[in-house]
């Protein structure tokens, strides 16, 4: 395997030449797509994992409370009685809270719409 000049020359001749115009851009687009997929997959996985762990903790807690403590989940809660005045205040507060929520919802909706149009 001294020089093999003939072989080197032949292989240079067979060389496919340069890449076509816009190749780098095409590859980077494919890379961005796969990066996005990867991110989505990992966020779905972590959300699933968190949900599973939460369910396990809740299930375990319920089991432990039922099996090892005298606490009963069917305890009767004391009845709450509202006076007429406090009932009015409660209705008014609920109305204001609902209004705020609706307005916030509209705000988010229109912001998203504007953002998508700008894109």
């Amino acid at each position, binding site marked *: 395997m*001294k020089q093999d000049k003939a*072989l080197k020359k032949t292989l240079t001749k067979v060389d496919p030449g340069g890449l076509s115009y816009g190749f780098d851009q095409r*590859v980077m687009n494919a*890379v961005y797509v796969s990066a996005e997929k990867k991110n989505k997959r990992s966020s779905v996985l972590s959300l699933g994992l968190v949900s599973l762990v939460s369910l396990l903790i809740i299930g375990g807690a319920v089991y432990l409370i039922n099996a090892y403590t005298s606490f009963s989940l069917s305890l009767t809660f004391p009845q709450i009685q509202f006076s007429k005045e406090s009932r009015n205040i409660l209705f008014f507060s609920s109305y204001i809270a609902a209004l705020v929520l609706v307005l916030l919802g509209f705000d988010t909706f229109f912001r998203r719409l504007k953002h998508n149009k700008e894109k």
Partner: protein
Amino acid sequence: MEHQEEMKTINRIRDGETALFSLFLEQYGSQVHSMIGHIIPCKEDAEELTQDAFVKAFCKLSSFKGDCKFSTWLYRIAYNTAISATRKKKIILPVIDESIIEKVADEAVDSLLDQHENEEVMVKLEGAVNCLVAEDKALIALFYNEGKSLNELSEILQLSVSNVKVKLHRVRKKLYVMIKEYKNEAR
């Protein structure tokens, strides 16, 4: 780009700076394409496989441990991608008897493969290279065209260094036999 600098860039890509991957694309794009082009003769297919190799490399970037050069790791992915593509297409290539290859003297091969000014040899050599199996084409392209060392070749092809040496010798002998057979056929 030095190894440490490459590792820093890779870590930044892993942390979400995807755009930095274009640095590797700029640096190794043509080389990887050249290697694949020697295995896959169709220009469009070679370019598509180069793209596949880079996307695969990006997806597997978390598994790159840095125990070898990034280029070696990338070449390994590109080599495997190209070889898998050739396996899908069944091409019938000439088979040379092992006993004939073993009989060929090293000096004869050295002398023939050095005749770069002999037009007849060059034409026959080109034909012989085209008749090699994909793995052999990749081996000689990486060694002669890309200038890869035996150690790098052993990492890319996942073979031992001595195995790579043996394979290289055998490919050269195969080429010699093919050229001689062409000569005999011509007579």
